[in-house]
């Protein structure tokens, strides 16, 4: 099997050459050489000066030392070069492209062109004219363009589909971006597989930390372009599929690796502001994961979920010892967490008990109402229109910093020679809560209770006929979700120093609100663990980094959601179920984990 795979692939490619026409008519050899040359030129260009003044952020004036946006072009060009060289079948590079060979080249070349083109455009726009470009910029730009043209001349990775045997120009371009699925991976020793997983998460952490640490919006846009094309290229190359096969195999190792990578994050940031973004992303992601229990597993559309975060936060604030709290007590942290979680749980049961008798849209409307009721009640408990509990719209400010085991989270600490700032401390504390929520989600999903939730989501009548007490289990999901949000709320109150009713709206510009939470779950992928985490990170990071488009934020957000629902309705991370549900293949689903034992023995024999 191992020896067969490369041969299979070469025959595939030759077949494709025979039946497909490249977008730019070039002989394959010439096309590949052009691509390699173009990306090499683009790469060299990044070492030259791109502009004459350091008025453009990132200082692109130094020769011999790429900076700012040049680094992105450099990385993109290097990736393109590697993919293109892998197409030559160079030993040691072939593992890069187990799926498609030529589509990743095209995608990464497009990424380089996008980043470089954007940079050139931004320089000439901000400094007033093309005249501000130094030769290095032209070198990289032309190199990137040549690389794209060359990549367009490469043959497609798979023959045309039967429904469109002779596509037009647009069809050919679209087709050249597709790639076949990679074959079964060669069995590696498990330590090597674990090492690969660790490396994968290391790269992921680095990319993520880089994205958070981008200091100006031009760099962040460049980062988004490079990351989007790079991610697609890696997917088309089949590397992602390989990695996810490994992570599915070593699930505990994967969880640990993800956790360790997440712990490392604050040590990569020296700026407190960026660590704060990290902490806020974690709060948002944790709440989104809690919502995923309710929406993703049990199928209950809850539009007022942020109220439970609010209940937890208010409960923690009231017992935090803040001078403005109407209850003058100061609970230790563990007791405050317990108070917040229990308060949310009680609130969840109280709201859930009457509303969960409704189904579908009606449930959504009622929960939306209850979410608003919470916010308005908090506003009215101000001493004027009600008893003085929450200080009304002023909220409860001056929440003191936490002290856990004599460790004050409010002041910086030196850990392993790195200064951990206040936000870094809270980030690590929040990470602990995220880990708990991940564990709760995973364990409850893979149990009798989790199956009953999914059964209720699928067909409540049939579930009841199977002996499932629908109302009780729905209430359980609702209460569990509320409790998890309450947990996150207790930390949020301390991170943001104050709680006010306006933090807990249905839709607002600052992410943890009901609409964004639901969007994070749907965008990321319902019913998965990593989906809401990724969705929340994106939904928090993009508005936080692109302050200049604050006015259009909701508009762009809506457009992005529509595009996603059109092209990838199952979300960024799809569980196998959803993928089959939304992309009808027209043939029976043959699970690929069944023939594994045969394949494994085959490999063992071949290896022996």
């Amino acid at each position, binding site marked *: 099997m191992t020896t067969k795979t490369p041969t299979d692939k070469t025959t595939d490619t030759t077949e494709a050459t025979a039946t497909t026409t490249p977008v730019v008519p070039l002989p394959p050899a010439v096309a590949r050489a052009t691509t390699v040359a173009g990306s090499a030129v683009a790469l060299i260009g990044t070492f030259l000066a791109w502009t004459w003044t350091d008025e453009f952020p990132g200082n692109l004036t130094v020769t011999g030392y790429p900076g700012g946006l040049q680094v992105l072009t450099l990385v993109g060009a290097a990736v393109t070069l590697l993919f293109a060289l892998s197409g030559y079948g160079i030993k040691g590079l072939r593992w890069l492209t187990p799926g498609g060979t030529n589509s990743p080249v095209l995608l990464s070349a497009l990424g380089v062109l996008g980043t470089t083109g954007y940079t050139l455009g931004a320089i000439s726009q901000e400094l007033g004219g093309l005249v501000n470009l130094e030769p290095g910029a032209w070198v990289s730009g032309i190199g990137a363009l040549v690389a794209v043209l060359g990549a367009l001349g490469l043959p497609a990775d798979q023959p045309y589909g039967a429904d469109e045997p002779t596509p037009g120009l647009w069809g050919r371009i679209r087709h050249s971006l597709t790639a076949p699925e990679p074959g079964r991976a060669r069995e590696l020793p498990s330590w090597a597989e674990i090492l690969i997983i660790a490396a994968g998460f290391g790269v992921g952490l680095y990319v993520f930390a880089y994205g958070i640490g981008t200091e100006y919006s031009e760099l962040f846009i460049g980062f988004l372009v490079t990351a989007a094309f790079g991610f697609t290229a890696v997917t088309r190359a089949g590397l992602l599929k390989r990695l996810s096969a490994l992570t599915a195999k070593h699930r505990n190792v994967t969880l640990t690796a993800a956790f360790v990578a997440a712990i490392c994050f604050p040590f990569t940031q020296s700026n407190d502001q960026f660590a704060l973004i990290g902490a806020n992303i974690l709060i948002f992601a944790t709440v989104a994961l809690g919502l995923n229990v309710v929406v993703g597993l049990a199928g209950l559309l809850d539009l007022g979920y942020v109220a439970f975060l609010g209940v937890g936060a208010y409960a923690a604030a009231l017992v935090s010892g803040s001078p403005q709290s109407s209850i003058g007590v100061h609970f230790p942290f563990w007791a405050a967490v317990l108070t917040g979680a229990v308060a949310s749980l009680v609130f969840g049961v109280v709201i859930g008990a009457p509303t969960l008798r409704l189904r579908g849209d009606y449930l959504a409307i009622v929960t939306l109402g209850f979410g608003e009721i919470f916010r308005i009640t908090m506003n009215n408990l101000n001493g004027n229109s009600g008893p003085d509990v929450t200080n009304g719209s002023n909220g409860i400010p001056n929440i003191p910093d936490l002290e856990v085991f004599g460790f004050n989270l409010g002041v910086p600490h030196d850990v392993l020679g790195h200064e951990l700032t206040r936000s870094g401390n809270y980030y690590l504390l929040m990470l602990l809560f995220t880990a708990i929520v991940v564990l709760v989600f995973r364990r409850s999903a893979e*149990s009798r209770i989790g199956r*009953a939730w*999914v059964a209720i989501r699928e067909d409540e009548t049939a579930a*009841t*006929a199977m002996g499932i007490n629908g109302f009780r289990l729905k209430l359980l999901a609702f209460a569990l979700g509320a409790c998890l949000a309450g947990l996150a709320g207790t930390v949020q109150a301390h991170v943001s120093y104050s709680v006010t009713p306006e933090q807990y709206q249905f839709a607002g510009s600052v992410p943890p609100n009901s609409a964004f939470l639901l969007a994070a779950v749907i965008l990321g992928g319902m019913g998965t663990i990593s989906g809401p985490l990724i969705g929340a990170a994106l939904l928090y990071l993009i508005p936080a980094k692109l302050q200049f488009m604050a006015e259009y934020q909701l508009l762009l957000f809506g457009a992005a959601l529509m595009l996603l629902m059109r092209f990838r309705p199952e979300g960024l991370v799809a569980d196998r179920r959803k993928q*089959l549900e939304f992309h009808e293949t027209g043939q029976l689903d043959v699970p690929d984990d*069944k023939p594994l034992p045969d394949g494994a023995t085959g490999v063992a024999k071949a290896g022996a």
Partner: protein
Amino acid sequence: MTTTAPTTTTVLDASNVTMRFGGLTAVRSVDLTVNSGEIVGLIGPNGAGKTTFFNCLTGLYVPTEGKVEYKGTVLPPKPHLVTQAGIARTFQNIRLFANMTVLENVLVGRHTRTKEGLWSALLRLPGFKKAEEASRERAMELLEFTGLAAKADHLARNLPYGEQRKLEIARALASEPGLLLLDEPTAGMNPQETRAAEELIFAIRDKGIAVLVIEHDIRFIMNLCDRVAVLVQGEKIVEGPADVVQADERVIAAYLGTPFEGAPGQDEAAEVEAAEAGAAEAHSTTEGDDK
């Protein structure tokens, strides 16, 4: 008529069941018993009240009058409690959990026979793993029994029609019922699949589970059932062994209608024929005139 051996016990005893929806009486004082090891059929034309009666047995409706007893105790009024008591059912239009795997579907059927709650799942208490494994084992046994074991990891939606019906039965059996209610188990099946379903139901009977079947396919019912009850307009008109029921005049009348009093004789027939011939002639002449 009903008791065959002294060892049989009454599993289901519905007595004087009446179901009214406002002024409409859908089911009128129906008595029906099902004994252990028996396959009983319930037939009747469309709208006869079969499904209403079925819903009274499964806890979806509470009968207006009369009572339904399962093994000597009156049935609770909630469907999930009925399942827990030991009555499992399938649906006329297949209602599988389409986006769960075949195995998961059967595991959901085990819900009432396992007790592990949320805490047990979250803390992975000692009994959890054992209970999960036992459930899985039992579910796989049932899949072997229905011949679906090879497809345990497929999504239920991707099974062919006949296998989806089988899976519904396997899922119902997973709740370890004493009585299985099948609502039109062969609807939409071809003759081969119907034969297979028949075999399966016999095998279920041999496991000691009583079966009550609603069906339209008379041939299927006649092969299968020890006893057949016929429901017409909400009333049970006859009950007995298959051949007796089949020959019963009232049953034939209910399905095919009764010949009316003055059935047409030879004379009337000849008269009609003559009249028709005359009409045809007249028609052709008018056509000729036109030309």
